[in-house]
């Protein structure tokens, strides 16, 4: 299948302030793509360019082969959108809002819509301004999914949802993926991305620093090996071995903690030269990997 979302060299600045710079990635049809980044990294700017709410200074953004700005109408027929900060007419009820957006989209399957309302247990009779933040989020989620769009662009979609509704959302995303539709999900909740996405892009300070499969992203992470010996072993015995980034001696030298960024083969062979009483390997979560990226590791260091 070809790329459903294609972004090339996208740049946008707000006067003198940074927006995004030279952002490139592609999302295949049927893929659930996670777009990760801290606050202010440029996630929403990228999304708003895909929605033709912002016009890029340079570069291109296309969905299903259509330019997002020049052919915005065609693009918008294909997408469902959840904004990061839902702002809707505060005086309309949830039901009225869904009816309004259904009409603006030329009508929707009302049975499917009713099913979505039931799944999220949304009370349609309250006005938008009277909803809790979680219920406001449900309204915008339902309006994004209700017309079964080919592409879903979701900006922090589960913010404010309780665990049960987050679970329901995960199911909905999986169903969407299983139907061959595409999901572009911006988030900073790693577990959400880890569970639902097939590929991930990380953006930091307006630039893409990594794009790859979730497993591939995990591959770049460092891990730790802790080895307990029967006798004191000097750290120098392991320092400089292939795959070893750092060695720390603890417990008076009977235990060594190795920070790894490569294969453990050389370490295992070196450890076999001594009496090993224990060996544990700790694999950091994607969360830790993600945080390390945000802590200023040079771009592409892990590539």
């Amino acid at each position, binding site marked *: 299948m070809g790329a459903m979302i294609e972004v090339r060299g996208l740049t946008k600045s707000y006067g003198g302030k940074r927006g995004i710079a030279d952002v490139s990635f592609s999302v295949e049809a049927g893929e659930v793509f996670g777009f990760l980044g801290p606050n202010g990294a440029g996630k929403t700017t990228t999304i708003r360019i895909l929605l033709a709410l912002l016009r890029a200074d340079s570069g291109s953004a296309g969905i299903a082969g259509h330019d997002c700005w020049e052919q915005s109408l065609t693009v918008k027929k294909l997408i469902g959108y959840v904004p990061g900060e839902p702002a809707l*007419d505060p005086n309309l*009820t949830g039901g009225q809002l869904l009816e309004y957006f259904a009409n603006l989209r030329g009508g929707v399957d009302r049975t499917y819509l009713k099913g979505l309302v039931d799944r999220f247990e949304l009370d349609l*009779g309250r006005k938008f301004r009277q909803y809790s933040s979680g219920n406001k989020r449900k309204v915008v989620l339902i309006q994004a999914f209700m017309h079964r769009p080919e592409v879903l662009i979701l900006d922090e979609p589960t913010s404010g949802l309780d665990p049960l509704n987050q679970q329901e959302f995960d199911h909905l995303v999986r169903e969407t993926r299983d139907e061959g539709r595409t999901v572009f999900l911006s988030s900073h909740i790693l577990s959400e991305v880890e569970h639902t996405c097939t590929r991930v892009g990380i953006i930091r300070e307006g630039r893409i620093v990594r794009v790859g499969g979730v497993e591939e992203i995990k591959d770049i992470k460092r891990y730790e090996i802790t080895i307990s010996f029967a006798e004191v072993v000097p750290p120098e015995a392991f320092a400089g071995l292939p795959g070893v980034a750092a060695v720390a001696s603890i417990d008076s030298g009977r235990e060594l903690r190795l920070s790894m960024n490569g294969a453990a083969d050389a370490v295992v062979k070196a450890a076999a030269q001594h009496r090993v009483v224990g060996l544990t390997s700790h694999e950091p979560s994607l969360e830790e990997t993600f945080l390390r990226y945000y802590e200023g590791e040079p771009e592409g260091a892990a590539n």
Partner: protein
Amino acid sequence: MLLTSVYLKTLRDARVAIAGWGLGIGLMLYTVLIAYQDVIATPAAREALATVAKQFSWLAAPLAVDTAGGYALFKYGPLVLLLALWPLLACSRILRGEEETGALDVLLSVPRGRVRVAVEKLAAVGTALLLIALVVGLITYAGGAKAGADFTLGDSLALGLDLALFAAVMGALSLFISQFARERRTATGIAGGLFLLFVVLDMVHRVYSGAEWISRLSPVYYFNESKPLVPSYGTSVSGLAVLFGLTVVLTAAALALFVRRDVGGTVPLPITLGDDEKAAGEIPHSWALRSVYARTLARAAWPTFWWTLGIAGFAGWLVAIVKQLEDQINSLAQSTPVLAQMLTKVGGGGTSLGTALLSSLFTFLPLMLMAFAITQSNRWTSDEDEGRLELVLATPQQRPRVMLASYAAVVTSMLIIAVTTLAVTLTVAALAGVPLDAGRLVAAALTMIPLGLLVAALGYFLSGWLRTAIDTGLLSLVVVAWFVISFVGPELSWPDVTLRASPFYYYGTPLVHGVQAGDIVGLLAAVAVVLALGVLRFSRKDVSI
């Protein structure tokens, strides 16, 4: 520095209003004051002015109109009271408005008591009103000095204080009502309606003798007890005290209710102010939700109703009273030719002086329609500012279509207002036996639409660059400037090129001279150009929160 306390933050939020309202009201008075010498150029003109003022005593007390200060107060009458609109809006916003947006939840989470937060906000509104009063007083004094008026700086500052106190009463009333209403707009609407009622109640005692007790129910009566610009009349301390007392009582009552109720809740009443809390829990079918046009029109339904009531009611009232005035004016005009010339200058002249009089009063109708247009273009701008267009633009709707659909709804509302106004005036004219040319009445009612369209188009156009407050403020300033040019310009014999800068010039005097097709086509062409530029801008701009 301006963000170090709730008081300073609220005052900072009011800085545009302080400058806008202070300069706006001040310059209105300044312009009339400097025009005064031209109006009373001869003794005959002075006499004519005093005579015609008596005919308009129902609108404003004709007190010493042959003096600069008396003339200025009479000329604007209740118009200066429009200042009350700002505290009326501000006081419903500072508590109820912030409760609606959730901003008050955050503010009340800091270690400050509710009373202190509310008092700081109200103190800022009060300070802003005093600053507006100061600006109005200083500009008025400058106008008086230029016109050689006999009032002092203290007198002009007393006028500012009188105005500020009246405005404070309306603000306190709005604050009080907002304790019972679920929505800010409900409180604003009710307080606005009461404001109009107070203006009318004050008029009663000038029309019917022995009905002064009715007028005493209105704060406007106490405002009018002071005429600081007329030194022989002076400032009424008791009038100011009543206004101050009303402000204190209403504010204290509102605060007492506020500290006892839930944040976001209301003080229970036997009837519900505003919409019901809960509607039917199902997905509805409604024509009002079918398109951007239908939704915008439905949202404007209540404002359109109230504005129609105001504009059509005012037009009907004018037609009804003109019959009573016509005979007196005709006889006066025969004995005082300058009066005839004056009415001719303002109303456009014609075979009937009554018609000329009506024509001059009809100038207020397009002004009111333009004010309506400002409120509606304000909604468009605030929708964009507050991010409500984001999801609409994420649906398969072209940007030009979205904007034009919204504009078309405003046009529809204005058509409803104009056509209703026409129907009311025709009916009243028939019932009262006023011999008006039906064709010209049709022209007067319908040709005000292009003026409203122009203001709305300008508002949509400016929204391409400006935030809501600045867009609305600038648009209001432009309309006031246009009105002053047409209202005072002829008296000052301003050059034709200046008079032509105001769209009111092209509205002309349709009741007397009928429609000048070229002028209307020109206005519509201007509307088309401004709207096209607005659409072009909206199609290319970044839509942001």
